[in-house]
């Protein structure tokens, strides 16, 4: 019986494995001509000469890249401003060029009078609703700014925001909806790494560019999908930063209190690794999101007798832990505690953790002292709109959308390859500072750095801040690390 069953499996297996893959080859195009680039050529000049239109150069880029996919003797143009002598390129016939532009117009959307961009964020539990709400406000500010400045490609941007509920399976569904129903040309945002991990697969399958906002998991960029970009920091780099700071405080034994999620577990693991490299011992405790009573865990942490506690819990769970630790005598006023970054929302922090003075927390994004005019403008607008201070995820959401709009403008079309090429060469100033994506198709990340740097914003600013007076506003709390930025010395309890 057992054998029969196995045989049955096997037959079914063979049948399905044996299904051959048939690639649908596009019909060959014709009418154009090959051209070898000589000195002093640039694409718009060639476009003017052959097609009679200076602005027709994206068609040359597009068809040459098409040819390159079939025949590598053609060059691959990733930056329309940069062609080299000796490259073989393909100049399309005027009909082909027209067909290309018609297709672009069709792509912009059925109505054709707006450019649709999709945005992901969590608005319902079990997702981080507080994060999603701030991200939504940030998106709305960005859309207003983009449209006030004339929109994208001369058309207003229509932003479609979808709730991902923090669930990976919803991430798939949300991306499907944005790409297939709403026909967006690009997607931005998202808060949860677990959602980002599934959403990037849909983006890749449909060849739609994405700029992720608050998803820190290394794997998101490490899969090296051409469509995937990220303005958030890398989880492993943040771990290194935490480890540096912990080392500077002179701790020898650390307790990491993390959450049992796609963010918390890998973050605790890489922090432990980085701490071990520096000769610091770490013990990890983990709890589910939504845990209220930490008294049992806190007694165990006490018994470990750590020099420092690092809190990687988020949202209300982190408040619960921090306040209960303080009440149990291992709070920030008893030994150094790196509180979760949600502490940056000072009003919520002080009402939920009244005994949280001397908490350290990591702030992603520029320190107030280093605010660029763009950051200041965004913070002011955000405060005027919501009455809250924008958190790093709000800044990331804002920048992810603005950067996408700039890329589409620079690409001059809504074609995915053109947008990706534009993003790889982008130079953008926003709330997080100056953003570039140095490693990508043109310039693969070096071996010793690893694939996680693919399409990753590398220079994210991060500082450690400490509340030094009860009830202090986060804007007034001093920066205590790194050395070159600090405005006050850390106060150790």
């Amino acid at each position, binding site marked *: 019986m057992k054998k029969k069953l196995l045989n049955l499996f096997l037959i079914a297996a063979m049948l*399905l494995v044996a299904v051959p893959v048939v690639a649908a080859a596009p019909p060959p195009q014709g009418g154009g001509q090959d051209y070898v680039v000589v000195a002093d050529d640039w694409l718009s000049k060639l476009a003017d000469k052959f097609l009679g239109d200076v602005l027709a150069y994206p068609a040359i880029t597009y068809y040459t890249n098409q040819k390159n996919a079939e025949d590598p003797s053609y060059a691959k143009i990733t930056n329309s401003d940069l062609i080299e002598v000796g490259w073989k390129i393909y100049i399309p016939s005027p009909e082909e060029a027209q067909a290309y532009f018609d297709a672009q117009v069709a792509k912009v959307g059925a109505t054709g009078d707006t450019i649709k961009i999709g945005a992901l964020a969590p608005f319902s539990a079990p997702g981080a609703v507080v994060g999603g709400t701030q991200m939504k406000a940030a998106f709305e500010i960005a859309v207003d700014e983009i449209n006030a400045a004339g929109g994208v490609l001369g058309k207003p941007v229509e932003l479609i925001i979808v709730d991902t509920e923090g*669930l990976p399976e919803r991430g*798939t569904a949300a991306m499907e909806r944005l790409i297939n129903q709403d026909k967006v040309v690009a997607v931005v945002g998202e808060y949860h790494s677990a959602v980002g991990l599934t959403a990037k697969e849909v983006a890749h*399958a449909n060849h739609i560019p994405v700029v992720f906002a608050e998803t820190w998991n290394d794997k998101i960029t490490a899969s090296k999908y051409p469509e995937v970009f990220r303005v958030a920091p890398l989880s492993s780099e943040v771990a290194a930063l935490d480890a540096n700071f912990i080392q500077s405080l002179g701790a020898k034994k650390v307790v990491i209190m993390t959450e049992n*999620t*796609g963010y918390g577990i890998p973050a605790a693991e890489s922090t432990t690794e980085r701490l071990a490299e520096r000769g610091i011992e770490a013990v990890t405790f983990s709890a589910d999101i939504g845990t209220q009573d930490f008294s049992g865990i806190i007694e165990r942490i006490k018994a470990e007798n750590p020099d420092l506690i690092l809190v990687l819990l988020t949202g209300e769970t982190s408040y619960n832990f921090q306040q209960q630790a303080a009440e149990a005598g291992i709070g920030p006023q008893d030994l150094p505690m790196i509180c979760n970054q949600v502490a940056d929302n000072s009003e919520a922090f002080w009402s939920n953790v009244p005994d949280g003075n001397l908490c350290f927390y990591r702030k992603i994004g520029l320190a107030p002292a280093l605010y660029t005019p763009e950051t200041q403008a965004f913070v002011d607008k955000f405060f005027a709109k919501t009455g809250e201070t924008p958190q790093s995820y709000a800044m990331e959401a804002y920048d992810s959308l603005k950067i996408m709009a700039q890329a589409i403008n620079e690409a001059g079309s809504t074609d995915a390859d053109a947008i990706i090429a534009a993003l790889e060469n982008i130079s953008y100033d926003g709330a997080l500072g100056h953003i570039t994506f140095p490693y990508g198709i043109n310039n693969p990340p070096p071996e010793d750095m690893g694939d996680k740097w693919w399409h990753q914003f590398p220079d994210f600013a991060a500082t450690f801040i400490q509340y030094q007076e009860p009830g202090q506003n986060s804007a007034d709390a001093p920066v205590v690390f790194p050395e070159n930025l600090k405005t006050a010395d850390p106060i150790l309890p």
Partner: protein
Amino acid sequence: MNRTKWLWGLAAAVGLLLIAAPALLESYPYIMHIAIVAFFYAILASSWSLLAGYAGQFSFGHMAFMAIGAYTAGIFGKYVRLTTAPTGVCSEIPMGNHWLVLVNFFGDNCLELGKANMPVGTLIYRLPALPGIILGIIMGGIFGLLVGVLVLRLRRTYLALFTIGFSEIVRVTFNAEIDITNGPNGLELAPLFPNGVHLFGFYFNSANKIPPYYVMLMLFLVSMAVMYWLSISRFGLFIRSIREDEEAAAALGVHIVRYKVLVFVVTSMIAAAAGAVEAHYIGVITPNILLILQMSLVISMAVIGGLESLVGAAIGAIIIEFALEFLRTSFTIGPIVVDMTTWRLVFFGLLLMLTLRFWTNGLIYPIIQRLTRSGVAEETVAMRQAAVEGAVEGQG
């Protein structure tokens, strides 16, 4: 008679429409996606209505069986491979010139270690989805049997509480055993057809919605057919008699234990099948599917559709799934912005309460009843008339 024909015609038309839908909706993959998910919920809601509405077993653990099916399929896909040469280190079963390799759950990945032993050109296949799904259905049945036996003595509230406990234990286990299930990040599964599929002379790649649509539709129709057949057979009669009065049913010779356990096994297997197919289609399964919210969705779908009607529950599920998806858009009334992401669930909860209170048979079932029975009243009148006339004749 005429009416019956008309009804069969209607059913056939709906069936044809469902089968032909992809041709119309091909350029709307998102609608196809919602349709697939709606069938998934329809299977769950109708099998729950068989369990709760027909047999009176108010189980809150239905999603747990669904998750057991999905996770079994996922773990099978993660740990079983087919190779053309033996690894020498894994436990493996030779089959002709192939080897079925079981990758060990803990420690080093033996497949990686075994690669050194295997000759150049050895192929390593993932098995297709089907055996994993079948295994998932079997696991669902085994757990259904286990729970069915354990809850024999429990009724109503006790049963509801026990099944909540069971579901929660399953959720926490999947959440905490990160080495095997990948914890809250979710277990990834291969698509239903990893190499794409040929259908009606067309080729569909692995991301295309049409093949999974038909798979889910087939599963839906087959499980509906099985459940309908069960409900009109002696089985259906027996489980309803158990629901109404267990002692009386036993006294009349109904084998209570057998039928109560059987209804758990059947509905669990159907739920597990739906879960395994859905997980392969979505590509990931997380323990969050076991949150009480998900179970309440299924219950509400069945209640609003009609608790004691398989078709009503299924239609309810499909309508609600579409409604919940399309109600996500916010709107404004004057200066107030109504954020429908949250409010839709508020209205949904209210609708559930009102349906329970004022339309005990749900909102869909009465419509079906009207369609199927609207001729009955006239027939009854005619029959009564005939009986009265007969009586009069007899008197005369």
